[in-house]
């Protein structure tokens, strides 16, 4: 895109700056639209599974429900509790929202369609997603109220625990792909299954890691069945209890942007990103971004499906799953996979 702006007669620095800003807007605005639609889909899927109609009043099929909600929230008064730590109280939702957007910088939507094609793309995603916990912890502390505080404690422990196993799963993928670059990881999946199927998920050594990653993604985004941070039966609404109006909406948007990010990571790391599922020439006539969005949406559907199906975990069960099941299992697979790759001479190119 920089070349395009340069051809309009700008100097390199200006063209780069304008191209980057344009790229950010091109990602952030459709993302916000996607978040609004995805919230609608979430409620609709939940409704269908519970044999209800779900949102169906605002607009055709209730499609405009999220926008109506957004408008309502926007017009509300922002209430700050008197005992709250004002600065941090207001900073927390902003951090959640910013962090949820920042990770999208390295997500490739199609071959070459990526804002920042950096070498350590995967590490960047890991680093940014590890920041997500601050919004929750800060809001819980700054609210100066007991339920948000409990929720913040839970969130901190939960996110750190599952980040460990996510890290090891990423190591497994990187071992196979031989790069931390997201585009490189997707390209490494071309024809991975006997030269026919695009995607690491088909590999028997990586499939268990795929499952671990998916479940950890649920826990990392505090989705059901791991939504202990906002367990309404115990904690009112968790860390969001004291928030109102736009500060609440920012949490809401950030949460769904994070869920979409995790879905797209599942797509990029295991399902072959923008590549068609099967290596077959006619499928390449479909633009890569369509495959990417279809796969991401499939994972999102699984997220809502699970939300509607599974009861919430108890806190000690959550910790047990993270530390006593996923951590040893992913460690074992790191050793297994690196051993297998070493024995088959994968590293000698």
């Amino acid at each position, binding site marked *: 895109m920089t070349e395009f702006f340069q051809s309009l007669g700008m100097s390199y*620095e200006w063209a780069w700056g304008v191209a980057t800003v344009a790229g950010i807007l091109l990602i952030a605005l459709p993302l916000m639209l996607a978040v609004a639609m995805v919230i609608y889909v979430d409620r609709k899927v939940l409704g269908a599974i519970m044999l209800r109609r779900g949102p169906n009043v605002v607009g055709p099929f209730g499609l405009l429900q999220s926008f109506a909600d957004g408008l309502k929230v926007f017009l509300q008064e922002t209430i700050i509790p008197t005992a709250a*730590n004002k600065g*941090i109280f207001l900073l927390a939702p902003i951090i959640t929202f910013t962090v949820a957007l920042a990770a999208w910088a390295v997500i490739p939507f199609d071959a070459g369609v990526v804002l920042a094609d*950096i*070498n*350590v793309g995967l*590490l*960047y995603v*890991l*680093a*940014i997603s*590890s*920041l997500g*916990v*601050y919004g929750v*912890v*800060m809001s819980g*502390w700054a609210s100066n109220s007991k339920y948000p*505080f409990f929720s*913040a*404690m839970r969130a*901190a*422990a939960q996110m*750190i625990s599952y*980040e460990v196993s996510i*890290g090891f799963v990423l190591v497994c993928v990187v071992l196979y792909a031989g790069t*931390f670059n997201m585009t490189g990881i997707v390209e490494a999946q071309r024809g991975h299954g006997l030269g026919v199927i695009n995607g690491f998920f088909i590999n028997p050594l990586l499939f268990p890691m795929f499952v671990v990653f998916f479940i950890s993604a649920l826990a990392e985004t505090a989705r059901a069945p791991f939504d202990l941070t906002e367990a309404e039966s115990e904690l009112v609404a968790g860390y969001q209890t004291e928030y109102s109006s736009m500060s609440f909406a920012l949490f809401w948007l950030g949460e769904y942007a994070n869920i979409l990010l995790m879905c797209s990571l599942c797509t990029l790391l295991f399902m072959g990103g923008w590549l068609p599922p099967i290596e077959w020439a006619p499928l390449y006539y479909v633009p890569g971004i369509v495959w990417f969005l279809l796969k991401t949406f499939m994972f999102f559907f699984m997220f809502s499906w699970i939300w509607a199906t599974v009861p919430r975990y108890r806190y*000690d069960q959550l910790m*047990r799953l993270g530390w006593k099941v996923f951590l040893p299992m992913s460690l074992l697979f790191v050793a297994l996979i690196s051993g297998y790759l070493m024995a088959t001479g994968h590293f000698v190119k």
Partner: protein
Amino acid sequence: MIQTLAFYLFASLVVASAVMVIMARNPVHSVLWLILAFFNAAGLMVLVGAEFIAALLVIVYVGAVAVLFLFVVMMLDIDMAAMRAGFIRNFPFGLAIAAILLAELFLGIGAYQAGGLTLGTPDGTGQAAMGASNIEAIGTLLYGKYIVLFEVAGIILLVAMIGAIVLTHREAKPGARGRQDIGKQISRRPEEATVMKNPNTGEGVEL
């Protein structure tokens, strides 16, 4: 131009937030300033081209260590007046640590300027390939030239971790309630956990 601007932005933010760490009255604010300092230090690392170190700094320090700091500090009820009372008493000690850190800094810069740092390949002969990416260069060094030191550091960490767990682990008294056997819980069937009784009116049930 942009890089110079970015450098001064990051550097001044690191210094300012480091000052705020010790100036802030509220310990939670201190930790948050510390996190900002870490984050800007990572920005400086990116500027010198060490993007791997920057990513690690954010993942390890910001993402894990600082969260634990925050976790602990948030739960403590710290009496700032009592802490300030000890300021004069601890001042010489702090000064000594500051002096040691400053001396180390000068030693490091001196060693660097004297050309005392040689980045090598596994056999310790040549330089790491200049074209290699950060990760490859660090990997070659850590798992090649410095493999022994690296492994020793790893074992020390492992021992420390197991030690901490052993020291804080409390064995439950035999027969204590509250311990769970997950396998037993999952393999339980409704037939062994429930009984159907059909009591007559006015009669109790004997279980």
